[in-house]
């Protein structure tokens, strides 16, 4: 499989109506900062023997999964196989009943926000536009609240970070557009920018390509490849692996609440 260069991908994204050469929020050399001074790279995500559920009811049993910085893992499985619960456990939205879930060494617990700033989340939403008009910049700005302090006034660098995140997904020129006026694929990229703006090390995406047509999916996949190339780890829940093209390095399959296989697919966009 031939891999496109970073510049080729940027060019293609520009042709799809995006702005050229977006500045990255997260230069590749910062990946080095994730390494322990005296040891190997910390995994972006480490799930070890984790049983995850709600209250006392386990849904995911004894799951193991490790994702390295700059690696993308697709999470596949039938409806009800436990994908969403595993993801919610990683996000701190479900109870970890036994075992461990660590994000870059930070222990994840239900309701605790210690790891929240390290994880970006792109929920599955068919439409980003709410009942009240919002611009792309306003939606993305919401992603800065947790890391900046939700009670503090907007910092001086607020707009610069929002613009950098929009540039990273190729939408710098649409910052003032109403999100309702953007295409489905562009709306998904706005949600990715909202997750990226707080500079997370791990990005969790729930069905990012669902309901998006092929040409928009191509732009979306190019964006994900860029995000991965910048050193972020990706977990992508999907029903349609083929749509993700060469982005996933490995595919984790879930069945009846267990991770039954984790296979390398040799993509590596």
């Amino acid at each position, binding site marked *: 499989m031939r891999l496109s260069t970073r510049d080729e991908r940027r060019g293609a994204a520009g042709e799809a109506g995006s702005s050229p050469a977006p500045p990255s929020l997260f230069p590749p050399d910062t990946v080095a900062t994730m390494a322990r001074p005296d040891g190997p790279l910390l995994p972006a995500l480490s799930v070890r023997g984790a049983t995850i559920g709600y209250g006392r009811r386990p849904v995911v049993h004894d799951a193991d999964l490790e994702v390295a910085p700059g690696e993308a893992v697709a999470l596949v499985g039938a409806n009800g196989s436990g994908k969403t619960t595993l993801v919610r456990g990683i*996000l*701190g*939205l479900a109870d970890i009943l036994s075992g461990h879930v660590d994000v870059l060494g930070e222990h994840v617990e239900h309701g605790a*926000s210690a790891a*929240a*700033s390290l*994880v970006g*989340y792109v*929920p599955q*939403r*068919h*439409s980003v536009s*709410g*009942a*009240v*008009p*919002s*611009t792309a910049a*306003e*939606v993305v*700005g*919401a*992603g800065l*609240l*947790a890391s900046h302090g*939700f*009670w503090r006034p*907007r910092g001086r660098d607020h707009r610069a970070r929002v613009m950098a995140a929009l540039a990273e997904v190729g939408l710098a020129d649409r910052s*003032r557009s*109403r999100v309702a006026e953007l*295409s*489905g*694929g562009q*709306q998904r990229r706005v*949600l990715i920018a*909202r*997750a990226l703006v*707080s500079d997370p090390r791990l990005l969790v995406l729930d069905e990012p390509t669902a*309901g*998006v*047509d*092929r*040409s*928009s999916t191509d732009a979306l996949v190019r964006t994900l490849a860029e995000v991965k190339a910048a050193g972020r780890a990706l977990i992508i829940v999907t029903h349609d692996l083929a749509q993700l093209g060469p982005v996933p390095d490995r595919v984790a399959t879930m069945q009846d609440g267990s991770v039954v296989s984790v296979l390398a697919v040799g993509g590596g966009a």
Partner: protein
Amino acid sequence: MLQLLDYDFMRRALLAAVMVGAVAPAVGVFVVQRRLSLIGDGIGHVALAGVAVGLLTGGSPTWIALGAAVLAAVALELVRANGRTSGDLALAMLFYAGIAGGVVLVALAPEGRAANLLAYLFGSINTTTSADLVLFAGLAVLVIVTVAVLGRTLYAVSDDEEFARAAGLPVLAVNIVLSVLVAATVVLSMRVVGLLLISALMVVPVALAQLVARSFAQTVVVACTTGLVAAVAGTTVSFYANTPSGGTIVLLAVAAFALTAVAAALASRVRAARHRRRHGADEQHGDHVHHGGHVHGEPDCDHPAVPHRDHVDFVHDGHRHAPRLTRHGVGYDEH
């Protein structure tokens, strides 16, 4: 207008109108974003029960209503967060419990006091006292300061609760704050527009603003301005026309919404016609017509086909396209 200001009661009424008109939409915009436009009505009905307790016991109906509304607001959020009851259903329960409690308690109240209930149900801005104004000013300052400090957080949580929770924001606390703001606004508004129209000043100016605004920030500004103008104009008209203030204010706001909706629809048609003239009939759908150089249904089309009544739609970028023949070839309507 000068004649109007000669009267103490009208000066107080106009001050109350300014506060309610500007404050109610500032809270309403988050409520509408959360798709809980009727939450004000639900909490308003509980405030009615509070008013009834006041009438029954001889206590201050406004203060008791404030306490009841705040308790109901917090209970609503706790039920939504922890119970198996949806927000919609919890709101309906609140609505019925409030009005049933109000009706029963008012029936038990002494006859003379119960007559005052009408002032709370339909609004009686002209009977606003100086003590009321002090309480209203306190509530208005509370609401404005909270929205100014927590506005972006209220927006983030109202827009996407799941994302906000994953990002580590205190979603339950923020939702409780918003509900308490609604309770404060309800009590602030009940003397002006009445409990039966309580949500109108929170929702109608926002409905108008979202027709013309391009951003959330613009929506807040346009909605608050609309609310302020409608409240002051309605109070003024009600003085000269001898009509109930609450109904007059709300009718003016609804009329402004209807006029804006018609104007927005006309402007949209004019823009579309101009665009057609400039680019030709088929290009009104821009890239949708060309689809990157293919026609839906051709071998190179990968858009899923979905049968729809007497034709086939094609799923395109999250929505559906229905083919139609035009003089330039195939065009697509969005279904």
